[in-house]
C-alpha cells in the first residue's frame, strides 16, 4: 500500500489529509494523478500547478509511483 498525503489547498480539495492506495508496480506519477482526480474531482483545479513528491523527492509525470511508500501532493509552496 502507498500512503498518499494531501497538504494545504490539496487537503481542502480532497477532503482528507491522507489515504492508502494499492498501486500497480508500473503506475506512473501522471497515471496516479488521473486516479486521484477521478477519486477527488476538485483536485483538477490544482492539477496544473501542483507537484508530486515520491518518497520525499519531487517527481515528474513519467516517474514511477508504483512501489512507493509515501506520495505527497505538493501545491505551490509558500514558505518564508
Amino acid at each position, binding site marked *: 500500500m502507498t500512503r498518499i498525503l494531501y497538504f494545504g489547498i490539496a487537503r481542502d480539495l480532497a477532503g482528507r489529509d491522507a489515504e492508502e492506495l494499492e498501486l500497480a508496480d508500473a503506475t506512473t506519477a501522471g497515471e496516479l494523478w488521473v486516479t486521484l482526480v477521478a477519486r477527488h474531482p476538485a483536485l483538477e483545479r490544482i492539477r496544473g500547478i501542483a507537484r508530486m513528491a515520491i518518497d*520525499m523527492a*519531487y517527481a515528474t509525470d513519467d516517474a514511477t509511483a508504483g512501489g512507493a511508500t509515501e506520495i505527497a501532493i*505538493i*501545491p*505551490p*509552496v*509558500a*514558505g518564508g
Partner: protein
Amino acid sequence: MIECKVVSTPIDTCALIARVSDERSGATSVFVGTARNTSAERLDGAVTRLEYEAYEPMAERELESIADEAVERFGALHVLVHHRVGVLALGEAAVTVVVSTAHRAAAFDACRFVIEELKKRVPIWKKEVFVDGAEWVNARP
C-alpha cells in the same frame, strides 16, 4: 554546522545568532521573515494572522540540501534555518536564516540564496486569515 528545523514554538533569533560564533567567521548575516498584515491579494491591512503547515520531513530534507549548496557555493561555515509552523500572530517570525562566513559579501549572498531557494522548493504552505475569510497563498491556478 548545518541545522534545518521546522518548529512549532516561537523562534529565538538571538539564540540562533549566538550559536554561529566561530573564530573563522568574520561575518554573520541574518534574515528574519515576519508575519505581515498585507498580502498580494489584500493591500488594505486585512490580514489578521497566518497559518503555516509543512511536510516536515521533506521540508527539513530540502532545507538541508539548500544549506549544503550554500556551503559549497559560498563557503558558508554555518547555516541555521528554523521555520515556524502553526498559527502566527502579526509580527512574529515565520523563518530565521543565519549564515556565517569568513567575509561579508559571501554572508549576504549565502543568506539571500537560502531564503530564495526556500521560497521556491521547500514544502511549506501559508494560509492568510483575513477579517472576512482565508486563503492559501499562491494556490490560485
